[in-house]
């Protein structure tokens, strides 16, 4: 499953959250601010898989941390997909 960030999003990053404006839907969302790093990564590599993202974020973590973080990252990505902030561009 390859992911891509929706076009023309506007972001405002704060200590307590990331506020995202989606001009396509006109909606504004307050989401986990760790989403920022994930969105940046997906944008940088154009399209990426959840495995790529997890590997990028968990680099340098031990196995326990990797397990915990993987679920957390998965939850964030599910939320981003649900809000149409990222889109699935290709399913394997």
């Amino acid at each position: 499953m390859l992911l891509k960030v929706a076009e023309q999003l506007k972001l405002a990053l704060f200590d307590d959250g990331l506020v995202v404006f989606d001009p396509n839907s006109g909606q504004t969302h307050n989401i986990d601010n760790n989403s920022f790093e994930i969105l940046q990564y997906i944008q940088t590599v154009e399209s990426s898989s959840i495995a790529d993202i997890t590997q990028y974020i968990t680099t340098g973590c031990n196995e326990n941390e990797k397990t915990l973080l993987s679920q957390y990252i998965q939850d964030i990505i599910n939320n981003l997909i649900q809000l149409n902030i990222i889109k699935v561009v290709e399913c394997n």
Partner: protein
Amino acid sequence: VQLKELSLSQINSLLKHSGIVLAIGPFNFSIQSSINNIASNLRRVYGDFNVLSQDDLIDFNVRVDKPLNIRSCVKPQVFFYHNDKSPFLPLPFYQAFPLLEWGMNWCIAQYSHQFLMLHSAVLEKNGTTIICPAESGSGKSTLTALLSINGWRLLSDEMALISTTDNLVTPISRPISLKNQSIDVIKRMAPNAIFSDIVDDTNKGTIGHLKPTQLSVERLNEKGIPRFIVFPKYEKLAETSIELKPKAEAFMQVIENSFNYTLLGSVGFDALSNLISNSQSYSLRYSKADEAIAFFEQLSNAPAVVEQN
């Protein structure tokens, strides 16, 4: 010429014929009415505002009048007109002045999308401008009136007009709309305060409009630089509670109190993003007016802080 310099009969005559043009902050309203108590109420609460001529640029042509039918005398009604069209259902005749005020609010909210508009009071002291977004029933107007009679400059009771380019707040220091017990509270605390006629049995209960202070009207052209956003909430018997509000949460709460954020799209997001980044937000729950005022005084004396975001 200020409105108070005109006699009641002069105001009445203008209202009945060409209309009286008032410069109210960034907007010029031409007001017409054949109803006598409109003149007396306008003179009382808009007395310090400048009167312009019909040759000046007019933003809103408004009128409040009885209908030309049987309801002009049987259970008489009053209509609000903007450009000769009535956007609302009529109200009982005795509510003519509140209807004019509500109609003026409607005009601004409908047509002033050069601003990000919030349902909010705005006050300033010592160069510190505080925006107070709040839902109806939160005690916003009462707190605004209290601060106003305690030396704060009123920029607005009803709506914050925020520039989408530089975030400055444009004053529109119109009368403060007070409801029910708030009217007596303010009359007790400021016996010299001037009110419009007090009107009972409106949809909002008993309504009175408090004249803005001369200081506020004299400085109508001085924009405010917002430093704080305070979300006030009056709760009977509540201990005063002040909490720093996280910025993303404040962002979303301001959206809930905006008239046109959604309509402005990206422009609204950028304006609000700047506003939140450059100000500190608090939630204020209170029941004791003096403690709420003390908090505002504290903010007005707070040194400027460089924000991280």
